[in-house]
C-alpha cells in the first residue's frame, strides 16, 4: 500500500483514530464532556475529509470513490447528530457514559466500511464491526429489562444472519472463484447461460437474507419492533439510519455493479421482498400504539420502498435511492430526536399518550415531529414527498407498475398511522387543569438542531436541485 492509498482512506482513519483517542482519554480521566467534544471533533473532521480526500482504490478491499464519500458524509453527519442527542440523554442517566461514544464511533466506522467495500471480505468485515459495536450500544442502559432483551435479541439474530451471509458468500465463491465485486461482475457477464452458474443464485439469495436482516426487510424484520422499542432512543435512531444506510449503500453498489439484474428469478425475489416489506411495515404499524414501534414498522416499509429503486437499477433508480435515503435520514433522525428530547431519566417517551396535546405545550417540538411524520408519509413541501415522487418515477421508468401500485396503496395505509400520531399531537387537553402547563424545557440546544433539521427537510422538499446535483455528480459515476 502506498501513500496515495493511505490518503484516500482518510475518512476511515479519522473516525478510527478518534475512537482510539476517546478510549485513551477515558483511561486518563473520565469526563463525559471531554469524550463528547472529542467525538464531535472527530466526526466533524471526518465529515470534512469526505469532501477533500482524493478518490482511489485502497487495496483490493476498499474502493474509496465519490460514491463511498457521499454515503460516508451522510453517515458521519447522522452520527454527529446522534452524538448530539446522546449527550443530553446520557447526562440524565446513571452509569459510565464515555464508552458509549467509543461504540458509536466504531459502529459508524463499520457502516462506513460497508459503503466503500468492493469485496466480500470487506463487506463481512464492515458488517461485523458494525454489529459488534451495536450489541454494546443497544444494551448500553443495561439496568433496563427491555434494553437487555433487545440487546440479546439483536445479538442472536445478527449472529445467525452473519452465518447466512457467510454461507452465501461461500456459495458465490464456489461458483465464480473470486470475491471482489468487479471480477464477480465480469464473470457473470461473460457467462452465457444461467444454468452454468448453479450456485450463484442461491448464494446471492442467502446474501440477500443477511443484508435483508440488517435492513429489516420483511420477512427478516421480526427483530425490529422489539429492538427499536428496547434500545435507548438515540441508539434506535442509529440502528434506523447509520446501520441501514451503510448496508443499503452496499446493496446498491453490489447490485448495480454485478449486473445481477439480468436474472429474472432474482428480481422476482427482490420484488417479493419489497412488496412484503411495504405491506408488513404499514399494516403492522396500524395496530401499534407505541411510537418507537410505529417508527420501527414504518422503517420496514421505507426500506421496501427503497427496494423499488434498487430494482429499477438504472441511473435514475440510483439517484432516486440516494435522494430517498437522505430524506429518510433527516426524517428518522428528526423523529427520534423528538422522542429523545421528550424522554426523561426513567423511561423513553414511547407511548402515544406521552404525545397527547404536545402542540399546546411544546409547539416547536410538535411541529418538528409533525413535519417529520408528514414527510415520512410523503406530503408535499417536505423532502419525503420529492423522494417518493422520485421513487415512483424510477419505478415507472422501468415499468414496474405492480410495485409502484403497491407503493401507492401501502403509503396511503401508512398515512393512516402517521396521521394518528399527528392527531394525538394536536389533541386539545380534555379538561382545563390537565397537562396544559408547559413541559420542562430539556435540551434547548437539541430543539434548535431539530429545527435546523426541519428547515433542511423543507429546503430539500422545495429546492432539491443542489442536492440532486450533488448526488448525480457523485453517485452517477458509478455506472
Amino acid at each position, binding site marked *: 500500500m502506498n501513500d496515495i492509498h493511505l490518503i484516500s482512506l482518510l475518512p476511515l482513519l479519522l473516525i478510527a483514530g478518534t475512537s482510539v483517542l476517546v478510549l485513551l482519554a477515558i483511561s486518563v480521566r473520565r469526563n463525559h464532556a471531554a469524550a463528547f467534544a472529542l467525538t464531535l471533533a472527530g466526526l466533524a473532521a471526518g465529515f470534512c475529509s469526505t469532501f477533500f480526500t482524493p478518490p482511489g482504490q485502497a487495496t483490493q478491499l476498499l474502493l474509496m470513490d465519490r460514491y463511498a464519500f457521499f454515503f460516508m458524509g451522510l453517515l458521519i453527519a447522522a452520527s454527529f447528530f446522534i452524538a448530539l442527542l446522546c449527550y443530553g440523554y446520557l447526562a440524565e442517566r446513571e452509569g459510565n457514559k464515555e464508552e458509549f461514544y467509543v461504540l458509536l464511533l466504531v459502529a459508524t466506522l463499520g457502516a462506513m466500511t460497508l459503503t466503500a467495500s468492493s469485496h466480500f471480505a470487506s463487506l463481512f468485515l464492515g458488517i461485523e464491526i458494525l454489529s459488534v459495536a451495536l450489541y454494546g450500544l443497544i444494551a448500553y442502559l443495561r439496568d433496563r429489562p427491555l434494553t437487555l432483551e433487545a440487546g440479546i435479541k439483536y445479538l442472536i439474530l445478527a449472529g445467525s444472519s452473519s452465518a447466512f451471509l457467510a454461507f452465501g458468500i461461500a456459495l458465490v465463491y464456489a461458483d465464480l472463484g473470486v470475491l471482489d465485486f468487479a471480477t464477480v461482475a465480469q464473470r457473470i457477464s461473460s457467462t452465457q447461460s444461467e444454468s452454468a452458474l448453479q450456485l450463484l443464485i442461491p448464494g446471492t439469495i442467502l446474501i440477500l437474507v443477511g443484508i435483508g436482516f440488517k435492513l429489516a426487510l420483511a420477512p427478516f424484520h421480526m427483530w425490529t419492533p422489539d429492538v427499536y422499542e428496547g434500545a435507548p432512543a438515540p441508539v434506535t435512531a442509529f440502528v434506523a439510519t447509520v446501520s441501514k444506510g451503510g448496508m443499503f449503500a452496499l446493496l446498491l453498489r453490489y447490485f448495480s455493479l454485478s449486473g445481477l439484474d439480468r436474472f429474472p428469478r432474482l428480481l422476482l425475489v427482490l420484488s417479493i421482498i419489497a412488496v412484503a416489506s411495504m405491506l408488513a411495515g404499514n399494516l403492522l404499524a396500524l395496530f401499534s400504539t407505541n411510537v418507537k414501534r410505529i417508527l420501527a414498522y414504518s422503517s420496514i416499509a421505507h426500506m421496501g420502498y427503497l427496494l423499488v429503486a434498487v430494482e429499477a437499477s438504472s441511473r435514475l433508480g440510483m439517484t432516486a435511492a440516494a435522494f430517498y435515503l437522505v430524506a429518510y435520514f433527516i426524517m428518522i433522525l428528526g423523529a427520534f430526536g423528538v422522542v429523545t428530547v421528550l424522554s426523561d431519566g426513567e423511561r423513553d417517551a414511547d407511548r402515544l399518550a406521552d404525545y397527547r396535546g404536545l*402542540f399546546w405545550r411544546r409547539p416547536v417540538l410538535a411541529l418538528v415531529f409533525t413535519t417529520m411524520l*408528514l414527510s415520512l408519509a410523503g*406530503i408535499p413541501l417536505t423532502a419525503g414527498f420529492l423522494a417518493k*415522487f422520485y421513487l415512483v418515477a424510477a419505478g415507472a*421508468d422501468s415499468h414496474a407498475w405492480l410495485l409502484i401500485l403497491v407503493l*401507492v396503496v401501502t403509503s396511503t395505509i401508512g*398515512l393512516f398511522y402517521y*396521521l394518528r400520531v399527528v392527531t394525538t399531537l394536536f389533541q386539545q387537553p380534555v379538561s382545563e387543569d390537565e397537562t396544559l402547563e408547559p413541559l420542562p424545557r430539556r435540551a434547548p440546544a437539541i430543539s434548535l438542531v431539530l429545527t435546523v433539521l426541519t428547515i433542511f427537510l423543507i429546503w430539500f422538499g422545495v429546492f432539491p*436541485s443542489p442536492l*440532486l446535483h450533488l448526488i448525480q455528480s457523485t453517485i452517477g459515476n458509478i455506472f
Partner: protein
Amino acid sequence: MILGWLLAILIAGGLIAWPLARLHPLLSRLIALSAVALDLALALFLAARDFGPGSIAGGWREDLDLSWIPQFGIHFHLGLDGLSLLLVLLTLFLGVVAVVVSWTEITTAVGFYHFNLLLILAGILGVLLSLDLFLFYFSWELMLVPMYFLISIWGREQRVYAAIKFFLFTQLSGLLMLIALLALYFAHHQATGVYTFEYQDLLGTPLDPHAAMWIMLGFLAAFAVKLPVFPFHTWLPDACTEASAATNLVLASLMASTAAYGMIRFLLPLFPDAVQAISPLMIVLAVIGILYSAFLAFSQTNLMRLVAYASIGHLGFVLLAIFAGNSLALRGAVMTIIAHAISIGALFLVAGAVEKRVQSREIDTMGGLWETIPRLSGAGLFFALAALGLPGLGDFIGEFLILIGTYQAHIAAAAVAACGVLAATFYALRFVQRAFQGPNDHSWQLPDLAPREALIFGILMVVLLWLGFYPQPVFETLRQAANHAPALWR
C-alpha cells in the same frame, strides 16, 4: 411576475400571521385579511388590465416560467388565461370572506388557523395557475395537510374521523394521479426524447388508446374524489358535518372547483379520445349523483350535511356538462362552478351563523327563527332560492346552459337532470321551511345579523344577482380560454 406574487403574498402572509397571534390574535387576523385582500386587488388589477381580446400575448394573459428542478425538466411555470382568471378571482373573493367569517368563530390557535387557511388558498391558486404538471400535482397535494388541520383541530365532535377520512380519500386518489402523471411523462419522453412536465408540450403527446385510457383514469380518480363524483362522495358530507362553516366554504366551494378546473384544463384536452370513450359512464354517474344527492339532501336533519348534499348535486351538473362534449354546456359548467361556490358557500355560512345562535346544527332545534332573526332568515331564503336555480340568480344561468348543451348531445340525460332541478326545489324549500318558517316552538330570542355578517351576506347576494342578470363579463373572459383548447370551446 404578478402570478408569483399572488402565491408569495399568501404564503408570506401565513408565515407572518402565525407567530403574531402570540402577541395578539387580532394582529394575526389583520395580516391574514390584508394578505388575501391584497391578492384579490392584484387579481382584479390583472382582470382589469387587459380586458378585451387582442392584448393577449402568447395565449396567456400572464406567464411566469422559472427553472425549478432542471434534472427532471420541472419548471415553476404559471400562466393565467380567462378560465383560471375567473376561478382565481372566485378563490380570493371567497378567501376574504373565509377570513372575515373566522373573525369571531375561531378563538383557539388563531395564528396556526390563518397559516393553514392561507396555505390552502395558495395551494388552490397553485392548482389554478400551474402550467407545469408537476407543479400542479405539488399544489394539489399541498392543500391536503392544512385542510386536514382545519377539520381536525377546529371541527366538531367527530372531527378526527372526518379529517382522516378526507385525507385518505384524497391522498390515495392523488397518488393514482401521480402514477398517471409519471406514465404520461415517460410516454412523452419515449415519443419525443424530451423529459418535460410542461402542459403545452404534453398536450400533443401521441398515446396508444389503451395507455391513454389508463392514464386518463389516473387523473380522473383524483378529480372525481375531490369534486366529488358519486360514488366517491362519502367523505364530503362527513367532513362538512364536522368542520366549521368557514372550512366548509373552502372545502366544498373552492376545493371542488379545483377538481372541475382540473377536468376542464387537463383531462379534456390531454385525452380527448379516452374522455369520449368514458363519457357515457360519467354522464350516468353525474345524473345519478344529481338525483341521489337531492334525495339525500331532502332527508338530512343536520344543516351542514344538507348543504353538503346540495353541493354534490350542483357539482353533478358540472360533471354532466364537462362530459357532455358540448361547448355550451362547458360554459354553463364554469358559470355553475362560480355560482355554486358562492350560493352553497353562503348557505354554509348561513348554517354556521344559525349554529352560532342556537348552538346546534340539527334542523329540529330550529323553526320559527324568522320571528327573532328576520335578516339572517331572509339571507337563508335568498341563498336557498339561488341554490334551487331561481332565474335572476347565478345558478340559474349555469344550469340552464348546461341543460341546453346536454340536450343537444344526450336528450335523456338532460331530461333526467332537469328532474334534479325540480328535486332541488324540494330540499331548498324544506331547508327554509323547517329552519326559519313555522311556529317558534323553542321560543328562540336571538340576536340578528351583526354588521360584519350583514356586510358579507350582502356582498354575496349582490354578486349572485350580478351573475344572474349580467353574466356577460364571465363569458367574455372565458372566451379567451378558447385559445388553448379550441376544440372544447368552439
